[in-house]
């Protein structure tokens, strides 16, 4: 008995010592559930949004767009454009460091730009105008153009995949078709690779030596002040369980809570449901131009008259607070959005659609419509499309499959009866559909275009014209022409916009309204 008492006493003493040794101010940890688990770590190698979000944690960009879409310096102190608009000179800020403590130099930025440009569609377009990228000194480099383009600033401030993140020279020189294996960045957080357990959690710790800009945060621009010591992305795949965990305080935020579960969160006094206007999404219908019946432009035209956006939005999101009917090609409210030419479309004028099908001599060839069944925000799109198309006179063969099968099948150019397809629906985030060059589905370069493979010289010329100009008024004018041309050739059809709100515990404050979820400026209050 005596020994037992001694043991208890010893344990108590040790416990007290451990408690005394604990740091005076406890670490703050923010536990978040993101829309997906992080599996790949190279934001240049893949366009997956979760990898882009990972990029924003640990990397920084030379330029960034604020919440109004204006291009602002980020890693650079300043940039200068020569009078002939053919030379851009970038000067890096003082005190920028990589996570390994070495200074960020022009020598790092040049291969970073080149690697990004080798993979990204806008980057490739930008590089077609670039003559040379030269280092002037450790803090300065120039981009010299063969002819002027507005894409240098738009490209280097591109907010969504692929984002031109800066990496150390040794990392940036990795073959763009291979994934990087060194995750040294210069962003506000450091990736804790040893703690990364795919399927469980991804951990980031605050980079104490990060030097944020002095301006307040705005969009992706401004001061990226990390106010939390540690961020953990928890991989909770069950939507209801994520809600339960948030309500119980086991996690602090959910990036994209399911719309149908928002009701219980709104009733909870400990939870804030925040709608970030920059985290909008646009639903789109994508026809395959290679095969019958959508190889005929007039048949594709009929779709504009068969569809209406209300039906799609109510069937998928079902809550008027989170949807917006917007017939504009670029997200409503952004710089290049315009209502021109959209007056008589997307209002389910079935008579007009039937007339167009008749004029096109549509012979009843069934439309193979791929129906994604496992992603809740997409599941109800295809049945609505089928119903509206059938009312217009189309014959539709809707084939149900999981999203990953859609992803695999849409890459096939085979005829629909040999494993190919005619149409599918998906969603893009705001940052991807801001202008004619960044909007992937507008690429109409035939074989080189994204799946669906539209082929149209006029559209490509308009996109080139957009790339050549840096005058906002001219860019807007070209964007309107692109929208008009899209209605003529039907590269894609926007079928409505929705927002995905974020949910936070009440003690989490400081969300920056940005086109991607960012963790700087967030803090946990008591």
């Amino acid at each position, binding site marked *: 008995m005596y020994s037992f008492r001694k043991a208890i006493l010893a344990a108590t003493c040790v416990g007290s010592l451990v408690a005394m040794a604990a740091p005076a101010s406890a670490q703050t940890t923010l536990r978040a559930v993101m829309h997906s688990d992080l599996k790949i770590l190279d934001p240049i190698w893949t366009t997956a949004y979760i990898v882009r979000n990972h990029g924003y944690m640990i990397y920084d960009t030379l330029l960034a767009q604020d919440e109004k879409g204006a291009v602002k310096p980020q890693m650079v102190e300043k940039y200068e454009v020569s009078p002939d608009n053919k030379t851009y000179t970038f000067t890096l800020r003082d005190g920028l460091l990589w996570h390994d403590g070495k200074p960020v130099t022009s020598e790092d930025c040049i291969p970073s730009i080149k690697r990004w440009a080798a993979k990204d569609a806008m980057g490739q377009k930008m590089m077609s105008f670039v003559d040379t990228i030269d280092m002037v000194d450790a803090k300065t480099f120039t981009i010299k153009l063969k002819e002027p383009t507005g894409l240098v600033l738009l490209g280097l401030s591109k907010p969504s995949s692929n984002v031109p993140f800066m990496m150390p020279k040794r990392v940036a020189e990795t073959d763009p*078709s291979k994934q990087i294996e060194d995750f040294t960045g210069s962003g506000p957080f450091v990736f804790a690779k040893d703690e990364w357990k795919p399927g469980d959690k991804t951990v980031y710790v605050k980079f104490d030596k990060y030097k944020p800009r002095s301006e307040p945060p705005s969009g992706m621009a401004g001061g990226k002040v990390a106010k939390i010591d540690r961020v953990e992305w928890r991989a909770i795949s069950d939507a209801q369980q994520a809600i339960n*965990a948030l309500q119980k305080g086991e996690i602090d935020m959910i990036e994209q809570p399911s719309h149908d579960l928002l009701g219980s969160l709104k009733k909870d006094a400990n939870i804030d449901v925040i709608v970030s206007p920059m985290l909008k999404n646009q639903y789109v219908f994508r026809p395959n131009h290679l095969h019958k019946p959508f190889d005929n432009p007039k048949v594709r035209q009929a779709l504009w008259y068969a569809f209406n956006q209300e039906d799609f939005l109510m069937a998928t999101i079902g809550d008027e607070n989170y949807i917006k009917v917007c017939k504009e090609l670029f997200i409503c409210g952004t710089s290049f959005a315009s209502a021109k030419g959209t007056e008589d479309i997307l209002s389910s004028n079935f008579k007009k659609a039937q007339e167009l099908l008749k004029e096109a001599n549509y012979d009843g060839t069934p439309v193979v419509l791929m129906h994604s069944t496992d992603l809740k925000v997409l599941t109800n799109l295809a049945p609505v499309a089928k119903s509206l198309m059938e009312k217009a006179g189309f014959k539709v063969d809707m084939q149900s499959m999981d999203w990953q099968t859609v992803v*695999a099948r849409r890459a096939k150019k085979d005829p629909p009866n040999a494993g190919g397809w005619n149409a599918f629906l998906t969603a*893009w985030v705001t940052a991807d559909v801001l202008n004619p060059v960044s909007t*992937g589905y507008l690429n109409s370069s035939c074989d080189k275009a994204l799946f669906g493979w539209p082929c149209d010289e006029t559209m490509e010329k308009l996109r080139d014209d957009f790339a050549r100009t840096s005058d906002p008024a001219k860019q807007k004018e070209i964007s309107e022409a692109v929208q008009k041309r899209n209605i003529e050739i039907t590269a894609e059809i926007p079928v409505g916009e929705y927002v995905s709100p974020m949910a936070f515990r009440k003690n989490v404050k400081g969300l920056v309204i940005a086109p991607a979820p960012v963790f700087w400026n967030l803090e946990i209050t008591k």
Partner: protein
Amino acid sequence: MYGYLFRRLIGTIPVMLVVAVFIFLMLRLTPSDPAAILAGDSATTEQVAKIRGQLGLDRPMVEQFFIWSAKVLTGDLGESFFFKKTVASLIGERIEPTLSLSLFTIVFAVLIAVPLGVLAAYRQGSWVDRIVMGFSVLGFSMPSFVVAYLLIYLFAVWLDWLPVQGYQRIAEGVGGWVRGLILPSLTLSVIFVALIARMTRTSMLEVLSEDYVRTARAKGQSERKVLFRHALRNAAVPIVTVIGLSIALLIGGVIVTESVFTIPGLGRLTVDAVTARDYPVIQAVVLLFSFVYVMINLAVDMTYTVLDPRIRY
């Protein structure tokens, strides 16, 4: 017996070979493309094709099979397409949660089901018997995710006794490890409690009418001794068979339960790998599960000789 054991072990080789061929073909014949998933939404057809080449998926299927099986024979399960980690290390990371969950589940199931089954047989036709059998039917009928949500609502959300989700490794503290496993293992054990209790009852009813039970009672042995020393031991063979089957069936159960409770085990790894079409991981996990299944069946067969000395191989 050793000869039998050897023959059974040799017999696992063709079984594993068939499983390997089957899973390999199944994955290649399903309409999916890991390269397209890896590349992301904005990737061009050329980029997807390049990734396909890097993964070796553009090679003829037979060549892919021989490359993979040659590696497996040397103990190399390959590298995950997505995680850039070896499959062996991924399995190593995930095995502890799954083993813990399986262990807790079987212990819960046996500790609850066997006494319930014995009691139901002893009180055949009484309200106790009816309640146990009613629970058994309910346990069979309810999908495990429904049981999971009910238990979560009751014990985690409403009573706030246990965590909603998550797993704490045993090295990080035994208390947290146990707390995190109670709800998932209770969820998973419901169906096995139903199965084992029912089998125990049936088996006990047969044994309780035997002469030696009457003799034991006539000798003045207590009912507890009659039930647990004489009857249960003789009724054990079918019960052990069902417990063995339950362990094998757990493999399916952990997939759902680990997903609902966010336990980073082999079940969750399987779901993630299937969703992402991570072929090397799926192939390795299916092979592992098949091997475990075969071994459990062998272990059950060996147990018979211990429980019933009349059984000889």
